[in-house]
């Protein structure tokens, strides 16, 4: 392998965004006929590095060569000309255009959509995709959109393919299909890079793995010669014990009782179908499922942010009294005296205001308190100081806009604020997504502390290993329906995985 000329050679690549160093003198080689897994935690600079290869960003320093020739990639067009195609995590599609229009976008020559449609169908037939070239993107599902993205790159005849976390939105079946396609392409002597942080994908698919940590290149090696433990060590920098603390629930009593909850999206798509469960006080209820299976709708229904078609959500007070939450907005729920905290998935777009400082963000929950028409700024500032100190938030000060903080610190600020109101119900969505290991454990600890205080915690997670170690019970969603509820202790990862993809699991197929 060492004798081969790399298809791509990146040397000393450095990229900064304001004060943040996203890539620091990174070296990377990509070979043809090989699938390279670019491994690293969220925020380790994988996507930034690949964006420089595909012309989205321009490096501050460093050299790139393709097939031994030095190149300058100033724009995505330069990248295409060099045969580099990237499938972004956030799809680069224009909603009001059709699939075919999106595929031919940016290509030279006369516009002939009929010929394009024909070629698209050929590509689809060759790889077993299904795309209707005439369909508008805004009418498509997430996985259909991804297919369009892949077809787009293939249509251009790219021979260096970069996929940024392509499986995040796919079912296991779709993932298998994708992997098969990627292997075919590798055998076709294409160079393939897959950005991921999922260890099993690395092991199942890649020939070689390269690891980034904190924007620095840590090392690369053939996948066969390494193992999960070694890769984890390289990713996180030191050996970690994966043991998450799970205290026994104390005196669990029903707190949130959901019956027959049915929710439709604005487009009329059924998001939750007859969902029933009970969340107990002093207990963590984990929610598992492939992304987009109704987790978001479920939490937002309880928080009063989602219109509900039918069903009931009751809040059981300490005295046993039941209150209906459906039809009430967050303010009404708060006024009922229900202390409900919600850590949403979209931290900077929903949970916090990115351009406001820490103090003003603390005020989001409390600014209404008091009769005065003026806001009380002292209490939230004090709260901000407390959160910064107690949770070790790294920030220049509490007057820094939260968008300037790193992902982990943003999450600490958000969780810190949400638990400050002494909630009785805590909803969290992907609470540790994008966080480094240490921050993740800080969050697990905080959640466990809430559990010990008798809070009913509903924890939506994507990492099954964490769910299996953290949650007392796990509710598995599949396509908006409850696939099953299993105790967290002793549950098998394989079984839960099966339940995620098939109603009821049906393990003995």
């Amino acid at each position, binding site marked *: 392998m060492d004798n081969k000329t790399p298809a791509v050679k990146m040397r000393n690549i450095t990229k900064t965004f*304001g004060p943040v160093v996203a890539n620091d003198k990174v070296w990377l080689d990509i070979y043809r006929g090989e699938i390279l897994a670019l491994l690293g935690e969220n925020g380790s600079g994988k996507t930034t590095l690949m964006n420089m290869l595909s012309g989205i960003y321009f490096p501050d320093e460093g050299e790139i060569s393709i097939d031994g020739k030095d190149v300058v990639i*100033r724009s995505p067009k*330069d990248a295409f000309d060099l045969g580099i195609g990237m499938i972004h995590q956030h799809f680069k599609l224009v909603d009001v255009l059709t699939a075919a229009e999106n595929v031919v976008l940016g290509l030279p020559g006369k516009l002939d959509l009929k010929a394009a449609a024909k070629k698209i169908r050929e590509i689809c037939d060759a790889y077993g995709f299904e795309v209707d070239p005439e369909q508008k993107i805004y009418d498509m599902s997430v996985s259909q959109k991804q297919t369009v993205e892949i077809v787009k790159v293939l249509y251009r005849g790219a021979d260096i393919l970069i996929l940024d976390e392509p499986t995040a939105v796919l079912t296991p079946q779709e993932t298998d299909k994708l992997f098969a396609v990627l292997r075919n392409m590798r055998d076709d002597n294409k160079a393939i890079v897959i950005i991921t942080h999922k260890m099993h994908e690395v092991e199942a698919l890649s020939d070689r793995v390269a690891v980034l940590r904190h924007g620095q290149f840590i090392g690369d090696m053939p996948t066969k010669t390494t193992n999960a433990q070694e890769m984890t060590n390289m990713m996180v920098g030191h050996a970690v014990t994966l043991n998450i603390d799970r205290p026994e629930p104390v005196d669990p009593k029903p707190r949130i009782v959901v019956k027959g909850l049915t929710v439709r999206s604005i487009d009329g798509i059924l998001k939750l179908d007859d969902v029933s469960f009970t969340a107990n006080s002093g207990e963590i209820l984990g929610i598992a499922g492939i992304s987009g299976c109704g987790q978001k709708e479920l939490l937002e229904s309880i928080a009063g942010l989602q219109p509900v078609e039918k069903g009931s959500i009751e809040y059981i007070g300490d005295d046993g009294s039941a209150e209906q939450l459906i039809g009430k907005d*967050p303010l009404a729920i*708060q006024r009922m005296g229900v202390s409900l905290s*919600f850590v949403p998935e979209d931290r900077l777009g*929903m949970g916090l*205001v990115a351009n406001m400082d820490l103090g003003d963000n603390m005020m989001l929950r409390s600014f209404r308190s008091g009769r005065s028409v003026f806001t009380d700024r002292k209490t939230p500032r004090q709260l901000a100081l407390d959160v910064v100190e107690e949770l070790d938030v790294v920030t220049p000060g509490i007057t820094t806009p939260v968008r300037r903080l790193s992902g982990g610190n943003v999450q600490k600020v958000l969780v810190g604020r949400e638990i400050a109101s002494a909630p009785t119900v805590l909803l969290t969505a992907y609470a540790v997504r994008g966080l480094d290991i240490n921050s993740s454990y800080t969050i697990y600890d905080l959640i466990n502390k809430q559990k010990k205080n008798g809070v009913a915690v509903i924890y939506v997670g994507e990492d099954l290993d964490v769910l299996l170690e953290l949650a007392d019970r796990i509710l598995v969603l599949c396509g908006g329906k409850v696939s099953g509820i299993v105790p967290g202790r002793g549950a098998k990862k394989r079984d839960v995985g099966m339940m995620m993809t098939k109603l009821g699991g049906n393990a003995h197929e």
Partner: protein
Amino acid sequence: MNNKTRTPLFHVSKRGLLPWYKAWAIRAAALLLALVACGVITSLVTGQNPIQVYAAIINGSFGSPRKIWVLLQNIAMLLCVSLAVTPAFRMRCWNLGAEGQALIGGLAAAACMILLGKTLPNWAVIACMCVASLAAGALWAAIPAVFKARWNTNETLFTLMMNYVATQLVAYYCVVWESPKGSGTIGVINPSTEIGWFPQIGSYKYLLNILIVAIVCVAMYIYLNYSKHGYEIAVVGESERTARYVGIKVDRVIIRTMLLSGAVCGLAGLLLVGSTNHTLTTTIVDGRGFTAVMVSWLAKFNPIWMILTSFLIVFLGRGSGEIATKFGLNRSFGDILTGLILFFIIGSEFFINYQIHFRKSGGKEG
């Protein structure tokens, strides 16, 4: 493509937060450059030496006590409209309809003066004028606001169109209430009884307006920065999803804020009709609704800075008007200079938000 010499000469990146004094230094530098450019251009057009040109500009604003009063009055009116649009802008709701909202406010005031002037005592007419103007301005802003809140109708375009509906409505009443007959204009309302005319403070005709706007300015600053409503506006402006998440009723905030915006515009119309002009024409607002957008934006939506930016605009306008008359040019020369200066200041924002890296020299410039 593989030639190294084709490395881009420079590239642009977003800056970290610039300290406020550096930001204002850049703006001041841009203003200075703009003034130099204006001086040069004026010198070229008139053949006068630049010093005389600048002297004329200053003379236009500060040449006599009367000129100073007119300057202050104009600042006050422009500031009033700018204050009006600011809450909406902070909410990222582009209210370009201030012109129409002020005009409708003026129309309501004039209507009270004309229709009630013969039946009610002076104080009652003035009270009616105040209520009617504010309500009319608020209503004119509420119409696009309701559609924005309920159906997300584009408010920039909607409010823009409302201006011309208002203009034509005023044009209609200008004919209906024409005096003398056949003139097509209203003329001074109640010239003998002076009913509905706002009282003068001492012998200073414009002092009342200036004081009222000064109070509104301080009140707006406090409202936006320290009140719960102001905080809600800021949250809605930054992120509607966050606002919903914490239980802020976004549609209600949009409508409430636009009502306020329109009411303050109505106040501007009221002052123009009731206090300054005692008449109504379709051009009484004089483009302030549009200039206000620039004033507010230049001041970064901060009411206190707006005193400075509206001073700047009015000062330039009056100064270049003076140049025009003194050197025998057309008054529109002032608009050209104002436009030029705005271009410089608008362009300077780039250097506050971005920095340029030059490749070869490796140096930085900002």
